[in-house]
């Protein structure tokens, strides 16, 4: 049996940022991310899943969002770095509003888009969703060792690239 409209509305209100952010960071494309995020909630609505707890809902949404975003990335052969600009500007202004180092944040976002898909997915789930490697492994249906390896490789790659990017950044006049 499908979930009720009110229930769906409530779930969207609570989880839309999570689902959209996963989709956006995995696909790197704003329009595709919205499409994926909408599809995730509609899949929940149609599936009639019996989600008994808030943890269950969150796990289900994270899992489906991640897999649908990976599917979209592969199907459309999106190169996330191509579509980065449109939402980097939004992030930049948001960052300033929060008093963060927006320039560094933008660099991080750019660097993330250059990572291979498995590493990017692991990094997104680890640092955006603050999930532990065993939780990520369960969500992706992979071994913990494989997830740890992707995290380690992804982080190493990010750090190497950041070393160059940060040098460029600090050379800029204040």
């Amino acid at each position, binding site marked *: 049996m499908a979930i009720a*409209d009110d229930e769906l*509305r409530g779930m969207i209100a609570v989880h839309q*940022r999570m689902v959209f952010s996963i989709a956006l960071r995995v696909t790197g494309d704003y329009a595709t991310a*919205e499409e994926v995020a909408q599809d995730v909630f509609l899949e929940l609505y149609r599936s009639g899943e019996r989600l008994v707890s808030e943890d269950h809902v969150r796990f289900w949404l994270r899992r489906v969002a991640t897999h649908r975003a990976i599917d979209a990335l592969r199907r459309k052969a999106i190169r996330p770095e191509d579509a980065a600009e449109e939402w980097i500007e939004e992030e930049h202004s948001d960052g300033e509003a929060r008093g963060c*180092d927006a320039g560094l944040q933008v660099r991080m976002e750019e660097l993330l888009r250059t990572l291979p898909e498995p590493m990017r997915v692991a990094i997104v789930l680890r640092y955006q969703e603050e999930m532990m490697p065993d939780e990520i492994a369960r969500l992706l249906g992979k071994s913990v060792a494989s997830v740890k390896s992707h995290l380690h490789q992804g982080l190493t790659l990010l750090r190497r690239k950041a070393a160059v990017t940060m040098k460029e*950044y600090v050379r800029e006049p204040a």
Partner: protein
Amino acid sequence: MSVSQPEEQWSRFEEKLSDAMRRVDPPEGFAERVMARAQADDRPRARIVPFLRRARVWVSGAIAAALLAGVFVAEQMRLRQERERTELARQQFEAAMRITGETLQQARQQLQQAGVRVGTDGN
């Protein structure tokens, strides 16, 4: 950001990464668009579900009828083959009896022609 403190930058790398990867808001009107799609989905689904239920009943009935018809036809074929075998056996028996009767008649006539009395009258 200071150039003179790279060590501190490195130690804060993961922290910066987490900060850079905080969740973002979906575009304006996202929830409304999802709800509109969900409600648009409801109408066709309402029509499709009863149709599928009816179709399931019809399909089940058709399968049951086909099974019954199959059993009936198989039984009829078995009875027909049995009747044919019985008829063939009866015809073969009658032919055998006719041939036997004719042979006996010929033998009796030959014996009578040879002057041998045949005890057909009980003597």
